[in-house]
Structure formats: C-alpha cells, structure tokens
C-alpha cells in the first residue's frame, strides 16, 4: 500500500540567510541576495554580480562540521552538510531510534565546486573534494545511515529529481526516512565566462540587486546564486508516530526529458507543459485546486517566455488566476540546489499562506501576461502548489506540494 509522503524537516542556506527562518523572512520581504562578486576577482568577467552565501557561513560551518571532515570538503559540500544538519534538527528526528538500514540520502549534485575559486585544495583532498557523491556520502557518514545514498545530476533540475526519488522510496515503503536536497555554487571565473559565452547570464551589473528580473521585458539572463536546500522526507504515519512536525505533503511529481536540445527548451514550452500536466495527473490534483506556481523563472528570454506559454497551455483561462513567482529574482539561480531550495520555499508558502514575490518586476513584458506577484509578497491561503525545475539537456521536473491538514 502506498504511503502519504510528508516533509518534516527543512534546512536552507542561501544568499538571504543561514537558517530557514532568516531566509523566509527575507524572501517574504522581497529582498535581493545579489551583490558584487567577492569570492574571486571578477573584473575580467562580463558578469560581475552573483547571489553569494554570506561570509558568516564559515562560522556556521565550524559549528556543524568537524575540522578534519571539513578539510576534505569543498565550501559547497560544507553548505550541503550544514543544511542537512539543520534539516535533521528541524525535524527532531533521532536516528538512534530508527533502523538505519532504512534511512537514505539522495542529493542533487551538478558539481562540488572544486573550482579555481575553492580554497585549500591539496593533492590529498582533491579526490574527496571533487567526487560528486561526496555530499550524500558525508551526510550518511554523519548519521551512520545505511540505506542507499547517492547523487543525481540533471543540471538545474537535479535536486528536484532527488526529491522525486526520495518521494518514491517513502511512498513504496523502501525507506522510512530519506534526506533529499542539493547544494551548488558556480561562482567562479571559468563558469561565469562559460555562461557569458552562451549569453545566458545577466550583465546588468549595476545595481546588482536589480540584475535578476524574471518575466520582465528588460530581463537579460540569469544571475548565479549559491546555497543548499535539504528536506527530510518520511511517511505521514512515521512522522506522527514520533510526534514530528509536518511542513507540507508531497502529492506527486513528474520527470520528463525533452530529447530536443542541449541548451534550449522545446519550442513554446511544450516539454514544460507536458511535465506539469503529467505531474498533476500523477498527483491526482484538479487544475482548479492549484493556488500557486513557484516557477523555474530564470530571467532568461526563452525560459520565461516558454514557461509562461506552458502554464497557459496547461491551465487555459485558469492560468490568469494562478499566482506565479520566481524565487530566482531574489536568490539567483542556484543550479543544482534550485529544485530543493524552491521546493522549501513552496512548502513554506503552503504552511504560512504567504506567496513570495517576483522582485525587480518594473517593466512588464506584454507577451508575458500572468500574475507574477510583482515585487511584494501576498497573503493567500492555498491548498496546492507546483514547483518547476528545468535543466540544460532537457531535464524537466515538476513537484506537486499540498498544504498539510491534520
């Protein structure tokens, strides 16, 4: 018998904060985490802004990760492990009370950030710092978890995929607890120059906070963000049996591949639409029940146009009544971590009845005519929300989250 899957713990580290509460407060306030790049000398890059995790992270990292282990992790891996520990603490779970062979870790990892911007890499730690399974491995080591632990890479949809696989394990009774999520940072010269060569990044460097402007007429590309988002999934019965809190329910998801282009989405958002349609069907949700869409919303010309077209294709006239917003307007695009970070924001929206805004929305694009929750968050009690993630290579994911009701 399939089980109801709930989110019972969440940890979030981003440019807008080092805790779930701080992040949520800043997101609701519509703040931007984008600033001038400080992690390396970006003066030779066309893009010189990014949404960096604040330097106070180093102190947080020292509190959560022992020196010895930390020396074998990149800064990004440390973000992932710290966010996992925050999520586990948030859940109140005690692994000593559980069968550890039934506890798993699945992380969305595009790379570990062992780039030219990483410090203290030596010959002896370079393998551990680089291997893409290091994030789930360190988390499983921390708690001595012995269920399957692995990484999944589907570019910008990676951590949404991780959530989907974790959902399946709980739903089908293959695990009691699955820690899912992801972390990423591509704030380094080689990747910024590489994305600049693809004309994918915003070059609106001044003022930094206004560079990411999804769905706006003057959008000119995405802003790179960094951070980690980790969620603890378990069945509703399992969470209730240990008196755990429940942030939200995962009702279903869809994963699709476009088989079309290594970079561009399918014309007119056809693949995006198919993904949302399938996710609703899998979750057995009526379109009229959807109260909010946390869009992929990258601030690129094609994504925002096609995602808008896809939403209209799926929802028809209803699309004009469903608020849509892009967390990337505030946090930048956190690549492998985006799916998890945005699922967390979606869960918080359901729990608190507040929809986060799309900031920097000052010049509407006449072709993009949905309700993008411009600039200011909105109070609205919703029952169902979608979280979209679409990655280079045609990897699509749509998660369907529901408000938890006792």
């Amino acid at each position, binding site marked *: 018998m399939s089980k109801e899957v709930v989110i019972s713990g969440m940890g979030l580290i981003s440019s807008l904060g080092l805790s779930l509460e701080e992040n949520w407060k800043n997101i609701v306030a519509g703040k931007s985490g984008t600033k001038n790049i400080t992690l390396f000398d970006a003066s030779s890059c066309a893009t010189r802004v990014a949404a960096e995790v604040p330097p106070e992270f180093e102190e947080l990292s020292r509190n959560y990760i*022992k020196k*010895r282990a930390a020396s*074998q992790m990149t800064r990004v891996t440390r973000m992932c492990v710290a966010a996992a520990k925050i999520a586990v603490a948030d859940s109140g779970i005690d692994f000593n009370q559980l069968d550890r062979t039934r506890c798993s870790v699945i992380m969305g990892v595009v790379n570990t950030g062992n780039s030219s911007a990483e410090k203290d890499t030596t010959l*002896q730690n370079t393998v551990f710092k680089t291997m893409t399974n290091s994030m789930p491995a360190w988390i499983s080591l921390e708690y001595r978890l012995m269920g399957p632990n692995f990484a999944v890479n589907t570019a910008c949809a990676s951590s949404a995929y991780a959530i989907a696989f974790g959902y399946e394990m709980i739903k089908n009774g293959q695990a009691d607890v699955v820690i899912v999520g992801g972390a990423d940072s591509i704030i380094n010269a080689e990747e910024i120059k590489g994305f600049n060569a693809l004309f994918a990044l915003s070059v609106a460097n001044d003022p930094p906070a206004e560079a990411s402007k999804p769905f706006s007429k003057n959008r000119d590309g995405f802003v790179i963000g960094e951070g980690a988002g980790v969620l603890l999934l378990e069945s509703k019965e399992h969470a209730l049996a240990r008196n755990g809190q429940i942030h939200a329910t995962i009702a279903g998801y869809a994963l699709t591949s476009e088989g079309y282009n290594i970079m561009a989405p399918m014309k007119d958002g056809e693949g995006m639409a198919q993904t949302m349609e399938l996710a609703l069907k899998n979750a057995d949700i009526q379109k009229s029940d959807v109260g909010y869409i946390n869009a992929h919303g990258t601030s690129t010309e094609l994504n925002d146009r096609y995602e808008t077209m896809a939403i209209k294709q799926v929802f028809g006239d209803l699309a004009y009544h469903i608020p849509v917003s892009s967390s990337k307007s505030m946090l930048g695009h956190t690549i492998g971590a985006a799916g998890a970070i945005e699922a967390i924001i979606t869960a918080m929206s359901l729990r608190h009845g507040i929809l986060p805004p799309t900031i920097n929305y000052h010049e509407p694009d006449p072709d993009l005519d949905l309700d993008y929750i411009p600039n200011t968050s909105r109070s609205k009690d919703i029952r169902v929300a979608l979280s979209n993630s679409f990655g280079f290579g045609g990897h699509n994911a749509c998660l369907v989250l529901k408000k938890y009701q006792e």
Partner: protein
Amino acid sequence: MATITERTKSEVKEIVYSFFAEECEADIEQINDNTSIINDLDGDSLMFLELIEIFKKKYNLDIELKVIGKYAVKHPVATIGQLIEMQLLIIEHENRLMELDK
C-alpha cells in the same frame, strides 16, 4: 636504513599525538597508545598517508607509498600505538619494509 634512537621514538610519538589532537580536535591528554583512531578519534585512513608525508619530509625518507600499502594490508593499524610502531619501521627500513615479512 636509519637507526632508531630514543630521540627518534620520542619525536615520532610527539608528532603523531599532536597531529591527531589537532586534526581530530581532541585533547592531547586524552590520547594514549591504546586510543582507537577510528572509534575514539573519528579519524580516517587519509591521516595515515598525511603522516607518512610529514615523516618523509622530516627524515628525508626513500619510501614508495605502494610499499607501505602492501605492508599495511598485512599489518593493519587500529590504534595510535600501532601507528607509531609502523612509522618507526618505515623510518628504519624505508623501501625494504617488505623484507621484514620474509
């Protein structure tokens, strides 16, 4: 082939104790020769290699890692005391370490 003096033994012991205290954030007073590297200090196998590098430099040793690897497979190290003994054998015998098993 180096001669192991009491001074060498003392130096090696001090370096090993300090290394583990620093890397594992442990109180050096709590470390003794029976301390388990994995269970008591939460250490790892990489630390063994890092110590070898330290001793290679300090004593200008002619030793290949593969020789140490082969020897370690036959003589696993679990405690601080065992690790010190092995480091002393490495310093003393360098690349002829495997000859000890003949």
